[in-house]
């Protein structure tokens, strides 16, 4: 029986996860504590917070595990820099400083930071950690596992076979061919920040016409999909081998047109912006086709009825829905932190298994973070002279506010693991009126107009509002469901342009506080669903602590905030 701390860091979205006696006890992204969006720094705060939450000291740890093999990564970086001479002259000094000055020493840094002998600090291959983070917390005994991201040490796509507590590598596609880097390059070309704007590209896709004006033919030059499920990038269009920031070269601009200037307001009645939307839609189609090819290969190699996905590309909920429909598997699972943060979880589980612990139980809830300090929230809110009161039934109080068309910041339970707000740190509102969505956008989120908001619905009622059933992904918002047109009046604020909704199904097990709220809404004669969006302002990480929540309330015009059994209502 062991206490194992997993760590991911140094690229983006660093995290720590603690596995105790084979169970995932706590998992935290560093950004939630540092308040720096996608913070890549070594997550020492998150690691300490994991230990504190579990009541452990550093000396109680049996191992600290990193989600990548630093020297394998150094080798790939060096080989790439040398292979692409002289185009890499700008990248070379920076890459060397980052690798030699910092990244290759990460295991020693972890040993020192957590007071461990160096022998207790281990590492696993990046994609193996991703695969472990998906398979070992799924409910499947036997599953094909597909990992698709930018790049790990060498691989950008890997297939695995998960059986019980084992994970067997099958085959891989190596850098520089990469679906993640294709997506990143187009994200930058569309004027969004890489590693952050990918959701925007997915949202934008619904507004475009896939393949319009010869885009399919042009994309065939960017990526070739082979019959065996593999793919190959047209490398001359990309720059990720020589430019770590932009990812695309002048040939891509010659092929698709000039990149969109960042920050410019979107106007779909202008031909230029419609073209950008068409490119996003074509890209989405290509990614889905590529993933279907990979899924077919995975099915052929494993014969499994189940598929687990991990890696940054697995956060594409539209593609996940298509895989669930057409991938040939009975069930598909994507855990909520499928990106790099999830590597921390996989690393911890892999080491715990090696130390003889059992495989963890299936992940039922993403509420793996820290709770709020209610007494502190009360004291600080009083000092801020906010109109705070205590209620006996916070779920009913929240339901009444939402039914009265108020926008409610909902801070209850332990915060979520992964990029989605799943009711523990959410902004909730009525899902019916489109105007609510516009109000939230104008007052708080200031998102691009094409980005959708998601609904959360009581699990047994999902079929009443959506064409589909709850599945392994819906509790974590890692897939979409088509909204039922006959219920469009109840879903006005949460239905995307293409008729889909990134619906979260809510059960007592997955999000008990939100479940109680939705039940209270239904009891009051309202639809048991709400608009659910993350509790953060533009460019901010999602709220974690009570102080973050109160800071949010000061800055943003929500009508009310619920912090456990405390209610703060803004005077109208």
């Amino acid at each position, binding site marked *: 029986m062991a206490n194992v701390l997993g760590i991911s860091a140094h690229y983006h979205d660093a995290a720590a996860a603690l596995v105790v006696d084979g169970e995932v006890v706590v998992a935290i992204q560093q950004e939630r504590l540092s*308040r720096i969006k996608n913070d890549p720094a070594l997550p020492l705060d998150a690691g300490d917070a994991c230990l504190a939450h579990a009541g452990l000291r550093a000396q109680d740890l049996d191992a600290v595990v990193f989600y990548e093999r630093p020297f394998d990564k150094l080798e790939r970086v060096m*080989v790439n820099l040398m292979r692409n001479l002289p185009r890499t002259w700008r990248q070379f000094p920076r890459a060397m400083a980052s690798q030699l000055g910092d990244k290759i020493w990460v295991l020693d840094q972890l040993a020192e930071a957590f007071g461990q002998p160096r022998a207790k600090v281990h590492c696993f291959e990046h994609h193996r950690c991703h695969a472990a983070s998906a398979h070992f917390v799924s409910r499947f005994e036997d599953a094909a596992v597909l990992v698709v991201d930018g790049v790990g040490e060498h691989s950008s796509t890997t297939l695995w076979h998960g059986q019980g507590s084992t994970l067997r590598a099958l*085959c891989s596609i190596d850098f520089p061919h990469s679906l993640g880097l294709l997506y990143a390059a187009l994200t930058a070309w569309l004027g969004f920040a890489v590693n952050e704007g990918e959701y925007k590209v997915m949202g934008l896709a619904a507004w475009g016409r896939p393949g319009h004006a010869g885009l399919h033919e042009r994309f065939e030059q960017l990526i070739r999909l082979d019959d065996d499920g593999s793919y190959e990038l047209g490398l001359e269009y990309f720059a990720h081998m020589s430019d770590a920031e932009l990812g695309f070269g002048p040939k891509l601009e010659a092929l698709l047109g000039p990149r969109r200037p960042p920050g410019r307001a979107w106007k779909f009645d202008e031909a230029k912006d419609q073209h950008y939307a068409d490119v996003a839609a074509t890209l989405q189609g290509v990614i889905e086709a590529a993933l279907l090819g990979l899924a077919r290969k995975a099915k052929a190699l494993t014969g499994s009825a189940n598929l687990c996905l991990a890696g940054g590309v697995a956060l594409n909920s539209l593609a996940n829905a298509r895989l669930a429909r057409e991938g040939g598997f009975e069930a598909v699972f994507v855990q909520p932190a499928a990106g790099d943060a999830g590597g921390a979880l996989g690393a911890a589980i892999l080491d715990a298994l090696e130390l003889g612990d059992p495989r963890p139980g299936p992940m039922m809830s993403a509420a793996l973070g820290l709770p709020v300090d209610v007494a502190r929230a009360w004291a600080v809110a009083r000092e801020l002279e906010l109109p705070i009161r205590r209620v006996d039934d916070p779920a009913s109080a929240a339901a009444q506010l939402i039914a009265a068309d108020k926008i409610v910041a909902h801070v209850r339970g332990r915060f979520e693991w992964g990029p989605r707000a799943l009711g523990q740190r959410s902004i909730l509102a009525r899902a019916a009126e489109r105007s609510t969505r516009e109000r939230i956008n104008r007052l708080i989120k200031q998102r691009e107009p094409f980005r959708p908001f998601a609904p959360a619905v009581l699990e047994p009622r999902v079929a009443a509002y959506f064409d589909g059933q709850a599945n392994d992904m819906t509790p974590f918002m890692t897939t979409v469901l088509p909204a039922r047109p006959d219920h469009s009046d109840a879903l006005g604020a949460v239905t995307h342009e293409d008729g889909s909704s990134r619906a979260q199904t809510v059960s007592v097990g997955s999000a008990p506080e939100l479940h109680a709220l939705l039940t209270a809404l239904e009891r009051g004669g309202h639809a048991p669903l709400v608009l659910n969006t993350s509790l953060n302002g*533009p*460019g901010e990480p999602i709220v974690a602590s009570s102080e973050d929540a109160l800071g949010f309330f000061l800055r943003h015009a929500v009508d009310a905030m619920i912090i456990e059994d405390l209610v703060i209502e803004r005077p109208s």
Partner: protein
Amino acid sequence: MSLTAALARLLNPLVWRSSARSALKLHGFALAEHGSMLDLRLAARLTPSPSRAAAYLRHADDETRHAQMFGKRARQLAREAALARSHAVWDPIRADSEQLFVGLGELDFLAFVHVGEARAIEQFLVYVDYFEARGRERDASLLRTILVDEHRHAAYTRSLLFELAASEAEARRALRRVRRWEAWRSWLRAGRFLAERVYMVAMLLVYVLAAPLGLLVRWARPLTRGWRGS
């Protein structure tokens, strides 16, 4: 006149000489305000006192607003100057936290914030004079608006500092300590700046010397495509 004000007055014509320069300077202010917001949010979480946490949260809220105001004006000026869209001014305002509360402790953190706010007041007053003299009312008005908050921040941090310190002498010692620490930090930053340049030159030299390796690598490690291990 203090050294800060004298320096600001001396550098005014250089710093604000064009829309592009002004945009860069204001973008820098936006980043500084954002970094300060992160430090204050952390302080609000870590201080044992709810009343100080509330004060830090209010201050952080002001810093967020200031960052947005500076950022917005910087982008307006960047537009006027037709600054390339790849320029940092167009990026979202993101700064790193120095975690000063953790590094300095609450007393020195308060002293640090107070010193920073007082310095900002001196600088901003000089800038306001400069803008008013040149009819740049928009920029003068921006700084005047922010100055109101800066005065309040300087006052409350001073009062909290003297409240938290065991004695007035202890508070003054903290102020002297952070001024020394800031000077030392500036020295280190200058050293790092220089070292980075030397390093870049050295690495470019290494790169040139390693050129033959490029040929070797292309031969020994050709690009792979398709499945490996299938």
